[in-house]
């Protein structure tokens, strides 16, 4: 039964048209482009696009640097996401514990970095890491944070700095939504603050933690601004350092068909991974 048909069309059509043009169409177009390949007759002959089937995907699969970059961001995520989320959870629990004065101040102070866009945060930290300009020269003079060994973790720190407070805020708002009577019951049973945090609060804010985890996984695989900016501070960051950098540098060669195949594979990997995080964290595994 569809009453108000014209109203429904009026409400949905504007978004629907733009969504189709700038979401569905590009996805379809990327898939189509990835199935073509550019052929030349002779070395300097005119280029023409011919259907190549899965040729580009074969190239993607056998592209060592691309998979190395995927491995790099997975390693990055495996370390950075847990560290950041544990920090965010810990800070949220502290703020919610009743031990702290000036909660409002701390909440705001931790949230401030989120207002700094990734590019600008990366530029700032690039200066802070630099051996000569940094305010922390005792550290940066002794250890080269921009060397090949450490630059990945230097970037992990930038991402943590920007997003830890934001994730803390998500978890903290979930904590505020818990009715206080629940704690009352636990207290009567003799549970202390640490025990309440561990057995009552954390399980109750689990959906919020899952949400932050999924957002973080998607963000990690899309890593672009930080490595792109760090390329001007450190020679250790190559043009294929992360998957998105690979897409960008492949498209500026230009090899659009291969870049399109990279994009499609990257989008698929992202979907699969964020979906499995969602599954793994929301269904048992960790006891509940």
């Amino acid at each position, binding site marked *: 039964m569809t009453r108000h048909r014209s109203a429904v069309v009026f409400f949905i059509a504007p978004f629907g048209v733009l969504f189709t043009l700038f979401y569905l169409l590009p996805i379809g177009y990327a898939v189509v482009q990835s199935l073509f390949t550019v052929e030349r007759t002779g070395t300097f002959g005119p280029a023409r696009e011919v259907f190549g089937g899965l040729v580009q995907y074969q190239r993607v699969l056998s592209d060592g640097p691309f998979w190395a970059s995927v491995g790099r961001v997975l390693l990055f995520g495996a370390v950075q996401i847990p560290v950041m989320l544990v920090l965010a959870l810990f800070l949220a629990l502290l703020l919610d514990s009743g031990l702290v004065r000036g909660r409002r101040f701390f909440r705001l102070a931790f949230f401030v970095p989120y207002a700094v866009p*990734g590019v600008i945060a990366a530029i700032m930290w690039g200066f802070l890491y630099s051996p000569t300009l940094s305010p922390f020269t005792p550290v940066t003079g002794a250890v080269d944070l921009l060397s090949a060994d450490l630059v990945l973790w230097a970037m992990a720190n930038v991402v943590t700095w920007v997003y830890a407070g934001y994730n803390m805020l998500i978890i903290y708002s979930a904590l505020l939504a818990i009715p206080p009577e629940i704690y009352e019951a636990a207290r009567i049973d003799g549970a202390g603050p640490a025990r309440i945090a561990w057995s009552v609060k954390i399980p109750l804010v689990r959906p919020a933690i899952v949400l932050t985890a999924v957002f973080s996984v998607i963000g990690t*695989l899309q890593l672009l601004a930080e490595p792109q900016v760090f390329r001007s501070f450190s020679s250790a960051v190559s043009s294929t350092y992360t998957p998105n950098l690979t897409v960008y540098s492949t498209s500026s060669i230009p090899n659009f068909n291969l870049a399109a195949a990279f994009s499609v594979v990257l989008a698929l990997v992202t979907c699969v991974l964020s979906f499995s995080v969602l599954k793994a964290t929301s269904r048992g595994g960790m006891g509940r």
Partner: protein
Amino acid sequence: MRARIAAMTVLGVCTVYFLTPIWWLFVSATKTRAGFTSTSPLWFADFALIGNLREVLTYRDGIFLRWLGNSVLYTAGAALIGTLLAAMCGYALAKYRFRGRELIFNVVLGGVLVPATALALPLFLIFSRAGATNTFWSVFLPSVVSPFGVYLARIYAAASVPDDLIEAARIDGAGEVRTFVTIAARLMTPALVTIFLFQFTAVWNNFLLPLIMLGDERLFPVTLGLYTWNTQVNQVPQLRGLVLTGALLSVVPLVIAFLLLQRFWRNGLGTGAVK
């Protein structure tokens, strides 16, 4: 008591971690080029903020000011229109029953999982086929679309607009659009602010799209502009001071706005996370 001291210490250390870079940026932006390398990085020396600001704003005929303006249009403009469209669509998905409703919602939900950067390259290819790359619209139009906004709008509309109220408005003879504008949109306002903020940050942080789409620096958002300045620092040392002062100038209004609107983040995130 001991627990309280420990907790305050931890929070104090974290405050230092989160605020020191911002403090450093502020102090650095007040220094002359000579003072930047020769004086203590975390404290003021020769206070040259006004001169630095003037230099940033007038460098190359005030291109920085233009970048700031572009950023406002790209982010605030796209987020404003995007929020309106998402609100309309989410409202319709929550409050009307029609064929294909679940299908549309699921397709939009799938769109949430597709990362914006995966779309940048294909968007570039499509716009270049239409001969429209390197234009304002090539960055603006894709930024308007926010599937996550629709998802949130549907949740909020379902939770905050009672069916009885819509029915009552109909009985009073109000048209559907009028009901949306005068009743539903008003009830959804706090949620709409949250959607706006989400989309605003998404557009503001989307670096790949302008990077890949724009060649003319007169169209750059401020992030891309500062990025290009930063890549030229080695050739043009003067730019280092401009990058720092420019970064401060573009971050300060955002920090203030985010702090003032912080309760909308909390409310919205609370609702979003509980679902």
